[in-house]
């Protein structure tokens, strides 16, 4: 399995380069907020070379939608990105993928989005349209993830472990709130709904306000682990834990209990306990 690992800082990059990770996932300045280590276009070549020199591949991840004006203002830069020596480019915006494909990008294109591909028919349509890999929706049940694993083991990129995004807003919701209550506050917080115990991570950056689950999603299903690509998300997680997951995965000892034993966060298998959709609320 090729293991993609999110890099959140220069220090983390140094440690991940020493690990058995196969692909380092980084972001481009102005397009990834605080979710990833952000690299300027000017320094991208150097970072790519450093990662390649360690025998690893590079994935540049654009997690969010890109509005027309922003796209237009950065079109020259994005054309340069297409020509960089990148191994993978992951797009949360379908338009970016289309653009890169038509500007001679030789990188493998990943459609990486937490919600949009919830069935193999859509996945196949994205693949037929020029994407090489895709991430199945995060909120589908384990049983449905197995369908992807069985039918598309080479193209599905599963998040195997880590916190994950559950909503993203373009609005600066934390700053807005701090303005209203007339006080300053941190840009990374925990949220708790008043009548419930569950908590969530909140993060505001230049891309908006994002909510992440505060439990670690752990996918240790054999069918999923038999796929060719796996992804580790490391935001809000101590780098030592991420390194441990890499080691467990490479040593084929990765398990729900193993992650749980060493984590300061709660863990879960994903939304497999229920699956209310069309019938909900009727």
């Amino acid at each position: 399995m090729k293991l993609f690992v999110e890099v959140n800082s220069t220090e983390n990059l140094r440690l991940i380069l020493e690990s058995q990770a196969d692909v380092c996932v980084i972001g481009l300045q102005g397009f990834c907020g605080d979710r990833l280590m952000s690299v300027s276009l000017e320094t991208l070549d150097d970072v790519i070379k450093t990662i390649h020199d360690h025998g690893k591949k590079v994935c540049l991840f654009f997690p969010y939608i890109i509005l027309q004006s922003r796209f237009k203002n950065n079109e020259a830069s994005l054309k340069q990105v297409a020509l960089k020596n990148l191994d993978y480019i992951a797009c949360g915006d379908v338009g970016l993928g289309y653009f890169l494909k038509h500007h001679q990008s030789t990188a493998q294109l990943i459609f990486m989005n937490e919600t949009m591909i919830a069935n193999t028919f859509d996945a196949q349509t994205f693949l037929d349209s020029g994407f090489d890999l895709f991430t199945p929706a995060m909120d589908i049940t384990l049983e449905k993830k197995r369908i992807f694993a069985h039918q598309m083991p080479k193209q599905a990129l599963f998040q195997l472990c880590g916190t994950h995004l559950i909503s993203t807003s373009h609005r600066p919701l934390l700053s807005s709130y701090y303005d209203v209550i007339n006080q300053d506050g941190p840009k990374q917080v925990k949220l708790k709904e008043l009548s419930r115990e569950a908590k969530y991570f909140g993060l505001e950056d230049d891309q908006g306000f994002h909510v992440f689950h505060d439990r670690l999603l752990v996918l240790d299903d054999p069918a999923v682990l038999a796929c060719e690509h796996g992804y580790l998300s490391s935001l809000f997680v101590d780098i030592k834990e991420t390194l441990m997951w890499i080691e467990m995965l490479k040593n084929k000892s990765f398990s729900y209990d193993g992650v749980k034993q060493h984590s300061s966060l709660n863990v879960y298998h994903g939304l497999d306990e229920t699956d209310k959709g069309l019938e909900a609320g009727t």
Partner: protein
Amino acid sequence: MSVELLAPAGDLLRLKVAFDFGADAVFIGGKAFSLRARASNFTMDDIQQGVNIAHARGKKLFVTVNIVPHEDNFEGIEQYLTQLNAMGVDAIIVASIAMGKISKRIAPNMEVHISTQVSAANEHALRFYKSLGFDRVVLARECSLDDVRTMVNLNILPIEVFIHGGMCVNVSGRCTLSNHMSLRDANRGGCAQSCRWRYELMTLDEQTIISNPNLTFTMSSKDLNATPHLKELLEMNVASLKIEGRMKSEYYVATIVNAYRHFIDHVDELDEDNHVASTLVELSKAASRATFDGFYKTLPHSSSILYGINGGGINQDFVGVVRKIEGDRMWVEVRNVFNDQDVLEVFGPNHENRQWTVSDLKNEDEESITRAYQPMSWVSMPCIHPIEIDEFIRKVTP
């Protein structure tokens, strides 16, 4: 090119009201494959009736097929789309490109519109959807006027934008708060609107509460009202102006469609500032939440959020519908309470609004009454002129 005014309808009654009050097209949901599972939605017979009503008036009917489908949700889709096509449905609105492709294969003449659920926000996304053979894109609500103008001018695909109604605070289709907090799938019709709940904020180590207990954190968005920018949207030739709200009442549909129809039809005749002001007043008569103008001019800040308010209010200004005219009296079907001497206003698609003071109120037994309070009962009162059957009556708030 004349712009299309596109209205929502949760059932046949609201569909008729939308067309009566000036919608050029109406979008509805069937019993399957549609978001807004809590809307009453249309049976197949209803859809056929809806198509017939629309086409008899030279108008269009669109059907939402806009869930983000899971593997098992494809069961029966081909038969469903075949039926919609056979009925004469003008377009389907999809969030799944696979469903869109299936539709194009089996019903190439039925248009496929890409839902705002996919959050198309740039010209390259439009090119992608065009390459798949689709016919229209509903833009992400995060787009500014400049974004919209640029994409319209590129003439890649016809563009539809929202002008009124509820707003997702999060990027549409990319929010699973409801899934995780309520185990209800937001992208398959079960959204619990968890964004509108109240939250305590704390530091990452959970040692310090940051939020103010008297004004808790929420992500609850005000509704969209694009009236201040409507003239610009009309001038840039977007294909369609969309009103959100398949779960809204007939009164809401009538009021909102009527106001926007009036604005569009008189845009060149009236002073813009006054036109905007009077439209805002008219729209406010059906408002259940405060509104803002979306992302059209600036990135929304704190004034776009409903702090300290739990959900939407209920508007009780709608008091009845004119059902019958007998000599010099009119019969009104009651919806909300009103009293003798209340000032009421009647509005309809063919006349300016008219106000009068209620007097000589009688019940169905011709007995004099001072208060009409039983919903769906009929009361009579002296006619005002002009008046037409099916016009709506509301209270005038002092």
